[in-house]
């Protein structure tokens, strides 16, 4: 028991070190990229102020931003402030970056969580259907749909859904996360869900095909095994076989894959949020890049990397539970 705990502890430490090294590298690369950009952040900041700025004030701003310092020094300053909790101030929203990220991440998280659960359930169910009816018509049709959806750009699917369900039919609102003109405190949970529905559906339609195809493959392997042959000989029906032999073999790998797909989820949410003008991290990052809001851009990049790392770590740990061979190797 103590040994297991120690082993687990060691795995955690190693994983933790890896994540820290990855995040550090992401921060360095992101910072270097932003430094290489031809856009002058101070100029952008002044433009956003909308007033003329005296040379002294400009010099003070340059001093504050540290534009004239060498990049390495600036990086060290930025990262130390970041670790202290000061993520800088966004030039676009004129508020601390940490606040913006916190607020917008809550919105994004609601969207991504809905889409994640929806695509997981849908993908898993359809994958099971495909695996059970392999090479028959349900399988063939569903496979075609999966391949078709993987060729459709996320934002276009969002546009089409917006056109059909929001503009033509009027079932859903056209955008934003709450009704316009209603105070933040008065928004009911139903209104929120109503606004969330279309983006979440878009996002989940984009991501369910990989999980469905994966589940189909796994279930096919199970169905070709000898214990299923025996179960069939005993007279078990298709769905009974799925319940007794299939699910316990395919559920965890599917869950693992779903956790490992956080990067695609986040990338997709950037597009979905922009189509539906949903105030989440994705629309903020696009706006930050377009308006040269460097602190916000850097903050969200780092935050997204952290998000993906967490997903990957959960996936890795789940792998260990699923597959004892990997557990043995990692000892």
């Amino acid at each position, binding site marked *: 028991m103590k040994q297991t705990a120690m082993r687990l502890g060691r795995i955690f430490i190693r994983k933790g070190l890896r994540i820290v090294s990855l995040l550090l590298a992401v921060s360095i690369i992101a910072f270097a990229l932003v430094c290489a950009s031809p*856009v002058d952040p101070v100029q952008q900041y002044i433009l956003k102020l909308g007033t003329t700025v005296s040379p002294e004030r400009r010099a003070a701003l340059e001093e504050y931003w540290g534009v004239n310092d060498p990049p390495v020094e600036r990086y060290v300053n930025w990262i130390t402030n970041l670790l202290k909790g000061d993520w800088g101030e966004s030039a676009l929203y004129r508020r601390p970056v940490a606040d913006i990220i916190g607020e917008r991440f809550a919105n994004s998280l609601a969207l991504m969580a809905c889409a994640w659960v929806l695509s997981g359930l849908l993908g898993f169910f359809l994958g099971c259907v495909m695996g059970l009816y392999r090479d028959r018509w349900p399988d063939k049709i569903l496979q075609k749909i999966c391949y078709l959806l993987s060729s459709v750009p996320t934002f276009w699917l969002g546009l089409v859904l917006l056109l059909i369900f929001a503009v033509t039919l009027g079932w859903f609102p056209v955008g934003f996360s709450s009704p316009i003109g209603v105070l933040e405190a008065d928004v009911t949970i139903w209104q929120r869900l109503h606004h969330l529905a279309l983006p979440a559906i878009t996002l989940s339609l984009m991501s369910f095909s990989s999980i469905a195809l994966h589940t189909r493959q796994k279930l096919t392997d199970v169905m070709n095994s000898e214990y299923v042959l025996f179960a069939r000989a005993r007279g078990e029906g298709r769905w009974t076989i799925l319940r007794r032999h299939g699910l316990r073999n395919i559920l965890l790998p599917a869950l693992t894959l779903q956790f490992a797909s956080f990067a695609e989820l986040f990338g997709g949410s950037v597009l979905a949020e922009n189509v539906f003008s949903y105030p989440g991290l994705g629309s903020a990052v696009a706006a930050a*890049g377009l308006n040269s809001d460097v602190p916000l851009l850097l903050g969200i990049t780092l935050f997204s990397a952290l998000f993906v790392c967490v997903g990957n770590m959960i996936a890795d740990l789940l792998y260990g539970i699923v597959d004892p061979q990997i557990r043995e190797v990692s000892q």
Partner: protein
Amino acid sequence: MKKLNRRTRVLILTLVMAALLAVVYLAGLLVPEEAVASDFLNAKQPPSWEHLFGTDTLGRDLFWRTIKGLSVSLTVGIAASCISAVVAVFVGIAAAVGSKRVDAVINWIIDLVMGVPHTILVLLISFALGRGLIGLLVGIASTHWCSFARLIRGEVLQLRGQQYVAVSRRLGKSSSWILLHHLLPHLVPQFFVGLILLFPHAILHEASISFLGYGLPPEQPAIGIILSESMTWLSAGMWWPAVFPGLTLVAIVLLIDRLGDNLRKILDPYSAQE
């Protein structure tokens, strides 16, 4: 007439698809500027025989604009997927053939690139390079090689375990000789198939990033830009700028996807039998 066998049929189909893509590409290059010039008298026309996809708010013909945009997309797609496929082959071989440390470093780099959502990384790179076509190209090329590199690495590791490699090593052939004569020839079909499977991803990414407002300047025809302009007029009942260019993009991506699949059947008949 003698019935054609399956391989010939696939071969003919592939050639037809490739020809179709080439036609779209060339048409986009050769369309005169007048065809997509603004014509305010004809603004906001719904689709008709004269304007197949209708016209946009400035009276530009959407059909020719779409074709021109597709041609840009194809250029970016080809260039970006070629670059990332070449990078992937080099990195994959290096990871498989090199020492354990090289392998670990490469794996770490792959984890790093996969650790940031691709959309965000492309945005960042495009931002760093000043939002031009080049930024878009570099961004897409530098994010798409990872999974393909892993595939190549696995393939090379598997090939290195083969007996004929062991035999030629015993015969005293150098590592580079083995690489050149035993490993690389096996990777050629893999390379082309991987290249063409990267292609649709690259095009989809190009469209998404220009949709977000990065990449090409807004007066340029690009699918992403057309679609992002269409959003403004969507609630006013202008549905055609959103529907037709998007459908064309999907059709082209599907076409390339099928093309890659057929190419795989021709180059790698074993996998097609499964």
